[in-house]
């Protein structure tokens, strides 16, 4: 059983990280904007609490929660969002590609559904090397109609790979409602490939943790992949550009109704007030430090814009002769 306070710490950290990151988008410290994870924190927290440090995840464009819950340093994460040399990816990835391989984060991916097959291959490779690592691939409801994701489900089942597919059904693919884009059911897709699938209350960190723990244990035991559809709601915008563009695809009343059950509030109720106050204070201190660290960190030198493109010494020609 995961410690209730630990789960609270994770959902609270993600919530406050995102709220502060939105401020930094508005003030221009974070270029390009972000896809906030507000409202979906229970999923990252519950799933990652069921993993070992050497297990691995692949994430999505809405990936901050996964990256923080899997154990990346919030200071370096924020520095990455701000495009700094000290960031997780040395400022080369940003919000949509944050990765920290040292703690099993094989990258957030900006193409919907693209990372499931990557997770499958990584899980296969580790198993072949004799390591009993489990891979979790996160994706949204918008990904369940991508061919490559369905292909990955087939491959995972065929080769009994230790992969847990975690669908975060927040009811919207950008502006498109899940019922307008998706025939059949989401769990039914996995079941069609013989993969056990379960719908989970994605607002409750402990419910997610319990379901994820069963799926991870099964995968680690060699019994093959599992699929969780975590039912949640995106409290905020698809992307921070909505603050300026203001697309109208859902009403304020609908958002309010969808946000009534709040994963941070749900988990807070399970933690002693004094403990909660201490955790809240620690998180604010940590995020203060993260902001100072990010803002004080150097921006990458433009002469290094082609660094890391290749693993060796290869340098392509520049843009002028």
């Amino acid at each position, binding site marked *: 059983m995961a410690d209730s306070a630990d789960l609270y710490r994770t959902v609270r950290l993600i919530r406050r990280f995102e709220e502060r990151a939105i401020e930094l988008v508005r003030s221009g410290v974070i270029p390009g904007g972000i896809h906030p994870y507000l409202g979906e924190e229970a999923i990252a927290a519950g799933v990652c609490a069921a993993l070992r440090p050497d297990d*691995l995840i*692949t994430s999505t464009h809405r990936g901050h929660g996964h990256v923080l819950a899997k154990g990346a340093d919030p200071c370096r994460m924020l520095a990455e969002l701000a495009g700094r040399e000290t*960031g*997780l*990816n*040395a*400022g*080369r*990835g940003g919000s949509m*590609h944050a*990765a*920290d*391989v*040292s703690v099993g984060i*094989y*990258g957030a*991916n900006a*193409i919907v559904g*693209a*990372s499931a*097959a*990557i*997770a*499958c*291959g*990584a*899980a*296969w*490779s*580790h198993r*072949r*090397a004799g390591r009993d690592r489990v891979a979790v691939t996160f994706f949204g409801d918008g990904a369940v109609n991508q*061919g*490559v994701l369905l*292909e*990955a489900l*087939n*491959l995972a089942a*065929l080769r009994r790979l230790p992969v847990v597919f975690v669908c975060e059904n927040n009811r919207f693919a950008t502006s498109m409602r899940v019922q307008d884009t998706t025939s059949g059911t989401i769990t039914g897709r996995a079941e069609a490939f013989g993969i056990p699938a379960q719908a989970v209350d994605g607002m409750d960190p402990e419910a997610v943790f319990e379901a994820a723990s069963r799926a991870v244990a099964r995968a680690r035991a060699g019994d093959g992949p599992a699929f969780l559809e975590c039912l949640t709601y995106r409290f905020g915008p698809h992307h921070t550009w909505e603050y300026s563009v203001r697309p109208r695809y859902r009403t304020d009343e609908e958002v309010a109704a969808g946000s009534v059950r709040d994963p941070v509030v749900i988990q807070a109720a399970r933690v002693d007030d004094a403990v909660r106050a201490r955790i809240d204070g620690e998180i604010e201190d940590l995020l203060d430090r993260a902001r100072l660290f990010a803002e004080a960190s150097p921006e990458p030198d433009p002469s290094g814009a082609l*660094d*890391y*493109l*290749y*693993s*060796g010494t*290869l340098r*392509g*020609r520049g843009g002028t*002769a």
Partner: protein
Amino acid sequence: MPILSYVRALNRALSAEMERDPAVCVFGEDIGIAVSNVTTGLLKRFGPERVIDMPISEQAFTSFATGAAIAGSRPVVEFQIPALLFLVFEQIANQAHKFSLMTGGQVKVPVTYLLPSSGSRVGWAGQHSDHPYSLFAHVGVKTVVPATVTDAYGLLVSAIRDDDPVIVFGPAGAVARRENVDFDALAPVPLGVGRVHRPGSDVTVVAVGHLVHDALAVADELAGTISVEVFDPRTLYPFDWAGLEASLEHTGRLVVVDDSNRTCGIGGEILATAAEEMHLIAPPKRVTRPDGAVLPFARELDLALQPARGQLRAAIETVAKSQ
């Protein structure tokens, strides 16, 4: 000396690398029965955990290779049909190729994509006859097009040992070739280093893949009137610009023969670079497929759209004469 075929050279390279390095594995369709003959014997020798017949899910197994590579394997992915590369362009150009940069160098993606028969085989029509190496050079994926048997062996070995994604095109027009080789002398050929197949003093012909053999034949025809140097870049990205420059230093005249569609084909890049940076005493020319070519089925129509020896000869004669 024993005779080795191009396809057997690829097979030998794969087999040698799998023997040398347990991280090397092969994914593809029908590779268990070796429908392309490149994987012959590998399943029996190395087993089904290293030689994996994949479902017809090219996108998934291409990204599966990316994940496996990040986690320490060195996959070789075989595609039977060059047009499948259009299907997996996302997985190669947008995923595998970008991981090193996007992660700030945290990961390497040592995957080799192997096309044992690319370009026209005549009679395979619109969706089996492409030769899309220029697309991959354009996006910056290391791109190799061996023309000869020993280069096929040596470049595939280097591709597998490279820590980045590398795509290896075996031109359909070259895979039937055979050479007398000393097996003990087979060796890796470094990526990015071209080869002068025939020295000459009047015109440099840069020929890609199977067209090297056409260029050598045309050079023979012209011997006595025009001295043609045949330069085979072998790797299109990174390109051996120094090798080309050295050749143009003494010829000053350039013709490129390239099995790409004309617009944005590698031939255009070679001409542009030579014009910008190198010694040219006459306007260069290129012989390519036409703009936007889709190879029609009928034999004469298919051949009509491929670079032909007559076209190459005419281009060489024009460039040799022009001032």
